[in-house]
């Protein structure tokens, strides 16, 4: 080996500089992991039986008052509840965060516990591709799962109601699907962040669930308290009541779950014309009970969708910075 010899230039397999080199390899591997993991089987089973249960209850409720409400039957499959059970969308409100957290809480720290991180990062990819790949794979998996569930709901609906859905209903359901995935995206970003910060997957899972509990259970109470402090009702003037209600709404919208609920309302109840506080004079000229066209409902939820996406991006950016700084060794 010592003698002089002409050494051919080593192969350059990729363009230097693209942070996304290897992204699709990561996405494919992570999606395969999600779709074959026992953890996801359990959650998929859970959401599927929830769908069947609530939709069958809803359709029997709808049939019992048949004839009275011919419009938007399929959307009612999502929202009608038969006491004592909640409706399908009520279940979605907490199943979606659960699924999202379950997918991401060990995304990065498991690479440390399995000692795979150093080996993977010594392949010609950037850390960006690994993190982004894991996130995208989670989003795509959610699209697949919820897409399948939506098909199930519509299939059961056709079977039990005996009528096909209208284009408007399909359109609203598709928007709902998009919003649901974005809502899951926020919780996935939370769990991904903790999976980078905490080396123990159990700690990351607990931290994610703590954040979720905070926003679902405690935040509504805190928001009322804060609203009462910021805009107190001293003598009971209508302006005072209105100011406090406005503050309360604004504060509650900080919780992703509240935004998602408003999105559900706007998309699944076309007769809802506004998501803010309505004063009687604002309704003048508006025909009450007249459903909004889909495009108007989408306009209504547009700020909410943007808010969910913005929250996801901010969390992802924090995760990214923290991951870039981390040492690769376990």
């Amino acid at each position, binding site marked *: *080996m010592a003698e002089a010899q002409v050494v051919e230039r080593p192969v350059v397999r990729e363009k230097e500089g693209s942070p996304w080199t290897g992204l699709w390899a990561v996405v494919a591997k992570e999606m395969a992991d999600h779709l074959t993991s026992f953890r996801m089987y359990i959650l998929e089973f859970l959401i599927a039986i929830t769908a069947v249960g609530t939709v069958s209850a809803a359709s029997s409720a709808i049939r019992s008052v048949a004839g009275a409400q011919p419009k938007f039957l399929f959307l009612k499959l999502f929202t009608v509840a038969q006491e004592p059970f909640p409706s399908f969308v009520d279940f979605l409100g907490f199943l979606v965060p659960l699924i999202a957290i379950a997918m991401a809480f060990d995304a990065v720290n498991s690479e440390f516990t399995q000692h795979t991180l150093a080996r993977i990062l010594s392949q010609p990819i950037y850390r960006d591709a690994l993190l982004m790949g894991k996130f995208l794979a989670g989003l795509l998996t959610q699209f697949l799962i919820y897409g399948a569930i939506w098909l199930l709901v519509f299939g059961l609906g056709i079977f039990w109601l005996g009528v096909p859905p209208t284009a408007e209903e399909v359109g609203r359901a598709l928007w709902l699907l998009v919003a649901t995935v974005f809502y899951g995206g926020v919780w996935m970003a939370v769990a991904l962040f903790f999976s980078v910060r905490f080396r123990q997957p159990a700690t990351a899972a607990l931290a994610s669930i703590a954040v979720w509990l905070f926003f679902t259970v405690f935040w509504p109470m805190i928001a009322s308290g804060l609203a009462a402090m910021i805009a107190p009702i001293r003598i009971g003037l209508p302006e005072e009541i209105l100011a406090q209600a406005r503050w309360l709404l604004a504060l509650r919208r900080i919780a992703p779950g509240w935004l998602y609920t408003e999105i559900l309302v706007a998309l699944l109840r076309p007769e809802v014309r506004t998501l803010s506080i309505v004063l009687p004079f604002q309704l003048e000229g508006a025909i009450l009970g007249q459903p909004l066209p889909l495009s108007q409902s989408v306009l209504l939820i547009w700020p909410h969708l943007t808010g969910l996406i913005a929250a996801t991006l901010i969390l992802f950016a924090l995760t990214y910075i923290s991951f870039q700084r981390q040492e690769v060794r376990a």
Partner: protein
Amino acid sequence: MARTVIEARNLSKHYNGIVAVDRLNLDIREGEVYGILGPNGSGKTTTILMLLGLTEPTSGSVRVLGWDPTRYPLRVKANVGYIPDQVGFYGDLTAWENLMYTAKLNGIPRQEARKRIAQALERVGLSDVAHRPVRTFSRGMRQRLGVADVLIKDPKIIIMDEPTQGLDPESARQFLDFILELKKEGRTVLLASHLLHQVQAVCDRVGLYYRGKKALEGTVEELARRVLGFAYRILVQVRKDARRLIEPLQRLQGVQRVEIKDDQTLIVHCERDMRPEVAQAVIQQGAQLLRLDMEMPSLDDVYTRYFQEVRHGRGAGG
């Protein structure tokens, strides 16, 4: 002269005030097996991570195959295979699937990847268990899978951190054979270890690290000469009265020291292979020669002696 494939100049790494690597200079030539030796915490792993661009140096520069790993990490990583200490695989995936993932990350087309995976698994003797989840693999099998994993990208340079740690003697020997094979294929191998006799068996050159500095560097013989003052030890056994041979042997040109073990045995420390001269001198003295053996200097001796001297404040080394 073979060209230099890894070059480090004044490379330093500080972790909040702790100096892990201190102004290191390193030149590794194409096709050689180079051993980084040193006690725990001497900066071996940190050096390796900087060579791969997985950790940013605090100061100094690195060139791997002529490229700076911080500026061209993809090129460097496409041509350098790395087996970390405690190499890990995805336990739920099979050996084959793990290697396929590596191939995809390297952008190797599927058809070509299949071929390389089959070859690599064959080479390390894991073809039979290719479709078993890695979770069921033993430590030694994982380590061999680590070799298969780096072979997928057909690298010019292979860097291994503590490759034989936790392997039984037989597996360790097998692993060292892999290293020699890789060298025969013209690949450059850099390995970090504190298992001295293993490093000695495969390395062309070694660098002795101590507290983030390269204290000594050279072939094992050179190090022995520098630290122990001799490179060869000749064991002489005669029928009786070995003591009277001490003086005549000491007079020989090149002999440094003669040590007496017992009435029959002497150890002659010398600068070069002096077996003929020693034999001749013994016969000339009329002694009956029973045995004449030469012992190569061992890295263990160098290592032990060097650190003894460091502890006693001598041997800044060089």
